[in-house]
């Protein structure tokens, strides 16, 4: 056919266009898939003050606690419930953390039953200095909690400096909590990290 002769000659370099496209697609995929867990939301509370709240304690339905109960020293605030298996899995590590450091641990018992929760603590031990009872999950909503366990680290002024969604395990302790506690000046037993 005479028509195909009139086509401009293909430039050699354009042979590499498909390869270039392929490399771009692979690069986008590589970055996209290494962006981290999409199930973990960045906390909207980071670097912001812990919200005001008013609730009773788990141990005493007549005792009202407010935000002020969390101030004065750095504190780990752990949202947990008896219906949450991961909470049970992290319980041992939380207990250990209170033993090897001077960090204060405060619990928020989230959408749970008071009797069940007290029973749970009696069974597995109570590492909490204070447990706030959030039976309707309203405090949880204020904190942006969308699944227990979640753990917040506050400085002495009540500013949220770190949040963990999921269990606190030895790895999280080593890589995330320990350096931040050191920075906050929390006393930590020799031999940790």
């Amino acid at each position, binding site marked *: 056919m005479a028509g195909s002769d*009139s*086509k*401009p000659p293909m430039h050699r370099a354009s042979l590499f266009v498909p390869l270039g496209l392929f490399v771009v697609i692979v690069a986008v995929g590589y970055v996209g898939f290494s962006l981290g867990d*999409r*199930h973990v*939301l*960045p*906390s*909207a*509370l980071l670097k912001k003050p812990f919200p005001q709240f008013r609730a009773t304690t788990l141990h005493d339905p007549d005792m009202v606690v407010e935000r002020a109960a969390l101030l004065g020293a750095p504190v780990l605030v752990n949202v947990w419930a008896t219906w949450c298996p991961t909470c049970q899995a992290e319980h041992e590590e939380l207990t250990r953390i209170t033993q090897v450091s001077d960090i204060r641990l405060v619990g928020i018992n989230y*959408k749970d039953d008071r009797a069940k929760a007290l029973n749970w603590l009696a069974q597995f031990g109570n590492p909490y200095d204070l447990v706030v009872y959030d039976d309707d*999950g309203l405090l*949880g*909503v*204020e*904190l*942006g*909690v*969308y*699944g227990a366990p979640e753990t917040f680290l506050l400085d002495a002024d009540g500013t949220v400096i770190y949040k963990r969604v999921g269990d606190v395990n030895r790895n999280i302790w080593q890589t995330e909590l320990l350096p931040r506690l050191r920075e906050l000046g929390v006393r930590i037993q020799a031999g940790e990290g």
Partner: protein
Amino acid sequence: MSGWGWRALLLVWATGVFTPLLASQIDVYRFDDAQQKTRYQALIAELRCPKCLNTNLAGSDAPIAQDLRAAVHRLVVQEGFTDQQVRDWLQARYGDFVLYDPPFTARTWLVWVLPIGLLLVGLGLLLLLQRRGRQVVSAPLSDAQKAHIRDYLER
């Protein structure tokens, strides 16, 4: 009635009796007027469930979605929030994730720029190909070729 007839009847009866029981998960909320109800429904359809990757508050059975529906209802009916105030309230607690609408930041610029960029690249390619197409000029037929065709057609 045959055995199959009775079975079919039983199935129809059971469907009628048990389906409403299965559907009883639907929340019951009271509204002062129809406008509040419309606003509530629009908001829970628009906002995203924090526990789910791609489900709105209206479509999720996750406990947190139930809590947030209750919160949106409270804000709309009791607190008298505007739609934007409800969005801001949720964003302050759960972040941009719940809005389905990423803001233009250093982290998200690609999401916004890429479609526009691709559109421009596509338009550029289109123009380029069109111009190239116009450059191909078909050469006029020689007298011999015309005679050949005429000859061919008249045969």
